[in-house]
């Protein structure tokens, strides 16, 4: 049965039209990944309106290819320009940029792209094997289980996210509050509109993503007065082949990166810690840990494998449970709803062509992606040599168009500017943005799951502990929520640190 499904998927993914869509998606995605202020999440958000008229399968292939492209693009800026385009490429700069400075940029990039590919391939194989099983399990879930899983999603931001736990919780609650603005779908009452007509339709998370990540990021980068000083690189087949001969030596690092990436990746916010963990493990296991940070190829392999495996793994909860694992997955999740599909376990029963086409396109997309970026690195790197005063207004204009096109409504463009300023302030004050966006996307679903659960139990919160699956998930979620407090308490006990809660770093 499994083979049939994946063959069906390839049948869908390898049509000339869908292959063309994948190529366009990867090219655009790589550009987006290289450009400052445009990352995977808002790139996908801006292009979403263009997919409204496409068949859903081609649309999701376009958006996922864009995402793979953005992941590859992030590696280019990290290695050549020492600018991590995304938080999970920070660890790639540690050794990637020193290598580029030593004139080995081409080797570093080859290693980065190849490791990305290996990580993605590994995660895709695991998704192919486990997604149907997980979806089958999820079919048995009721509202209490779904609410518990959503709590687990948000608790992992608090417990593992790395930002100030207090600020993470505030971000989550704000996202849920923004989601509640407008019509209450259960009772039909208007909420939090204060009699203002524009507020009646609520806040669209696509606009929030474009504002928070796009405009906010632009404001942050102009503040730093960015000047791009990139290392030049010459890419040719010989370097690529020579590097490939060297890479099998690091098979342990690859394997570790794959597992860490996948394990961390299907939990929200997992890609960044995964890349750092993989880097740290590689350094610890290395015979020459002192070379790390000075331009060690293994130091590029480790974080890139894990980050890309995690990026792909973030798709798993979206298609099986209906819960996006990252802001980018959240935008795709929104896309699914707009295209008239219900994200979640029913996809495997009702839309096998869509879901298997998507999974098959993960194989084809990453393969096309690695070939394209290897072939066109100089072209993509040249984008960063465009003067900033040309890039900035262009990106702002693109963001404005994307926000408008979601609902053909000017108020959304104003919201975009507003979210941009909020994103800038929040970023500077270390309020995490990803949980806010996820809460905004999942708000309605989480609320109705909670209300339905409470109706089932006549108002008793114990329902989340009485059902076995829900109980396990709820307890895990509670553990993550209190984890920062436990850590603070333990630190205070051992008197290693100052007796205050950890400040945002």
């Amino acid at each position, binding site marked *: 049965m499994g083979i049939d499904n994946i063959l069906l998927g390839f049948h869908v993914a390898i049509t000339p039209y869908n292959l063309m869509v994948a190529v366009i998606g990867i090219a655009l995605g790589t550009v987006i990944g290289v450009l400052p202020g445009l990352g995977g999440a808002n790139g996908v958000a801006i292009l979403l*309106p*263009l997919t*409204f*008229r496409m068949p859903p399968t081609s649309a999701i292939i376009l958006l996922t290819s864009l995402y793979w492209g953005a992941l590859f693009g992030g590696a280019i800026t990290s290695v050549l320009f020492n600018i991590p385009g995304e938080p999970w490429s920070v660890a790639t700069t540690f050794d990637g940029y020193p290598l580029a400075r030593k004139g080995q940029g081409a080797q570093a990039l080859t290693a980065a792209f190849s490791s990305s590919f290996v990580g993605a391939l590994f995660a895709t194989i695991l998704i192919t094997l486990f997604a149907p099983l997980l979806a089958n399990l999820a079919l048995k879930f009721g509202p209490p289980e779904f609410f518990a899983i959503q709590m687990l999603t948000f608790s992992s931001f608090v417990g593992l996210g790395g930002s*100030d736990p*207090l*600020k993470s*919780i*505030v971000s989550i*609650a*704000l996202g*849920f*509050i923004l989601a*509640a603005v407008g019509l*209450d779908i*259960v*009772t039909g*009452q208007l*909420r*939090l509109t*204060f009699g203002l007509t524009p507020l009646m339709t609520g806040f669209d998370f696509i606009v929030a993503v474009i504002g928070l990540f796009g*405009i906010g990021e*632009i*404001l942050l980068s*102009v*503040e730093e*007065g960015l000047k791009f000083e990139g290392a030049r690189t010459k890419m040719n087949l010989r370097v690529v082949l020579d590097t490939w001969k060297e890479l099998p030596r690091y098979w342990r690092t690859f394997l570790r990166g794959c597992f860490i990436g996948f394990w961390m990746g299907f939990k929200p916010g997992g890609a960044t810690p995964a890349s750092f963990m993989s880097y740290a493990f590689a350094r610890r296991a290395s015979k020459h840990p002192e070379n790390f940070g000075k331009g060690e190829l293994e130091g590029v392999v480790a974080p890139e494998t894990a980050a890309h495996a995690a990026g792909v793994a973030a798709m798993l909860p979206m298609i099986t449970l209906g819960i996006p694992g990252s802001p980018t997955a959240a935008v795709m999740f929104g896309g699914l709803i707009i295209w008239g599909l219900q994200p979640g376990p029913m996809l495997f029963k009702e839309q096998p062509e869509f879901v298997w086409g998507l999974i098959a396109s993960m194989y084809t997309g990453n393969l096309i992606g690695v070939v394209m970026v290897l072939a066109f690195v100089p072209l993509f790197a040249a984008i960063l040599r465009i*003067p900033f*005063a*040309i890039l*900035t*207004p*262009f990106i*702002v*204009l693109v963001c*404005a*168009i994307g926000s*408008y*096109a979601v609902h*053909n409504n*000017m108020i959304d*463009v*104003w919201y975009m*500017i507003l979210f*941009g300023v909020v994103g*800038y*302030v*929040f970023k*500077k*004050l270390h309020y995490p943005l990803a949980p806010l966006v996820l809460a905004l996307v999942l708000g309605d679903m989480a*609320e109705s799951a*909670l*209300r*339905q659960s*409470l*109706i089932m139990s006549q*108002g008793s919160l114990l329902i989340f502990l009485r059902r076995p699956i829900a109980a396990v998930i709820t307890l895990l979620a509670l553990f993550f929520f209190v984890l920062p407090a436990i850590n603070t308490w333990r630190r205070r006990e051992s008197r290693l640190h100052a007796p*205050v*809660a950890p*400040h945002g770093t």
Partner: protein
Amino acid sequence: MRAADIATASILMLLGVVVLAEAIRLGFRWGPDGPQSGFFPFWLAVVVIAHTAAILVQAVRKHSTEPFASREQLRMVLTVAWPAAAMVLFTHFIGLYVAGAVYLFFYMRLVGRHSWASVVALSLSIPVATFLVFEKWFLVPLPKGPLEAWLGY
């Protein structure tokens, strides 16, 4: 940084209070058929107020002399923010394509000080390309103004 932290936390707390008041107005208890409309917002507001209070305490205790943004940084941010807001405002009257062209033109010329030729070429070609992609190719209509009407769109 400390002042900005305190200000932001206070604003968010105020927001929490507003939401709380609204939730109480809507009713946050058990209605005839389950939790009332204000039930979820009520608890969210409580969470926001409690946690912003904790952030406030943290921020007040912390001593930091690092500014939120230097004068120069703030100036750079405003040179992006104001023209962008102006473009959005003008879009209401002259459509997105013309407003976009004007915005690109002024930003590249006044902030970037690029040559007239490249500024004119870019600020015309980008909106035209956008027009072709959105209106013609993907059939996504964007706001249009008098110029497009005069051209027959």
